[in-house]
């Protein structure tokens, strides 16, 4: 099939941004790589449909991100998802470290469990602000909320993450970096 200008531009965007998008989606889903892949595939397909308009406005990445974030929040709201994924409390402990495990005693599984325990919008706020380094204004635009809400959600998410990791014992090693 001949490739159009849309195809060329879209493929270049995917080459450049897909991994970054998928890594961020993995954090949004607290390590559920299958769901993250679904979200990214959905976002990129919809981005392709809207490509001429989005390309003109220069908001390709933001458009894809908005779909990923909203689709994730929608997914979380489904009863099936709530039954399977909501985490009222963290596991007893961080569990055994994997071979060649993480330094500082912080296990990746414990961090994912702590992320999973955060409400989805709170998790999105912390990922957008701390992982993607988006501004408060950009995050507010993506989450469709006020900048004040972004600030409070990010602060609460950070504090709760710290408390959850401390509760499991895994956070103890990070205490020094908070001061």
């Amino acid at each position, binding site marked *: *099939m001949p490739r159009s200008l849309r*195809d060329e531009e*879209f*493929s270049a965007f*995917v*080459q450049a941004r*897909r*991994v*970054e998008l*998928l*890594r961020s989606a*993995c*954090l949004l889903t*607290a*390590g559920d*790589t299958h769901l*993250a892949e679904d979200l990214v*595939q959905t976002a*990129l*397909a*919809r*981005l*392709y*449909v*809207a*490509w*001429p*308009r989005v390309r*003109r*406005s220069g908001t390709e990445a933001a458009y894809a991100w908005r779909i990923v974030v909203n689709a994730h929040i929608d997914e979380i709201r489904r009863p099936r998802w709530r039954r399977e994924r909501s985490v009222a409390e963290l596991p007893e402990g961080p569990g055994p470290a*994997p071979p060649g495990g*993480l330094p500082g005693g*912080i296990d*990746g*599984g414990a*961090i*994912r469990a702590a*992320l999973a325990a955060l409400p989805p919008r709170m998790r999105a706020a*912390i*990922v957008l602000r*701390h*992982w993607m380094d988006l501004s408060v204004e950009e995050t507010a*635009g993506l989450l*469709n*909320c006020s900048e004040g809400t972004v600030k409070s959600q990010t602060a609460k998410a*950070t*504090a709760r*993450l*710290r408390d959850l*990791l401390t509760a499991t014992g895994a956070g103890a090693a*990070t205490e020094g*970096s*908070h001061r």
Partner: protein
Amino acid sequence: MNDVKDLLERALADGHGPAPDQPVDAAGDLARGRGLLRRRRLAGLAGTVTAVAVVAIVPWATHAASSGPAAGPQAAPTLRSSGTARPAGPIALIAYDGEQAPGYQVAEVPSGWVVQGGNAYALVIAPQNDTDKSIDSFLGKLVVMLQSRDAGAPTQGTSQPVAGRPGRFDVQGDTQILTFQGADHGWVVVQAPTSLGWDSARLAQFAAGVQVLGNAQPGRG
């Protein structure tokens, strides 16, 4: 916790996220995008074909009904009672990737409808085959505009938020009006004909895809 980014990086360890240098093959995403675009276009075409078929059938049926018993007594009453060529259900919203007008952009339009035109004061969306091409005529069309600078916050109708922002929904005759707080340009008005078959939530869904550009201007009066 100033090391949150490091914690998040660790959460991606042991196979719970791709490596930053993982190779990418865009072919799958390209194929899925093309497939979705094809389905959207087919859905739009189906809507247009349906509308054209109804427009073609109604005059025929009306003529048949007026021609007496020999003209088909079973079909005539049903079609004659429909009165206008309204669709049986609400017209679906589909992603829009056609030409946009200055002042406003939309993410979705009713299936079979297109941006007819616009300027800094209004965006006009109408059925693709609409014979009324004047963008100063709003009758039976979907229109987006900024709230008049002489009007205050809306008070009539019922509450209908748009993307988390406050809005009011009202029906006046054959016209639905949704006035909602725009992201950064004051109140935005969306006017839609009831013939779309939409409820306030569907209208709000459309409104959520409206982007007011910097050159949009509110009217007076």
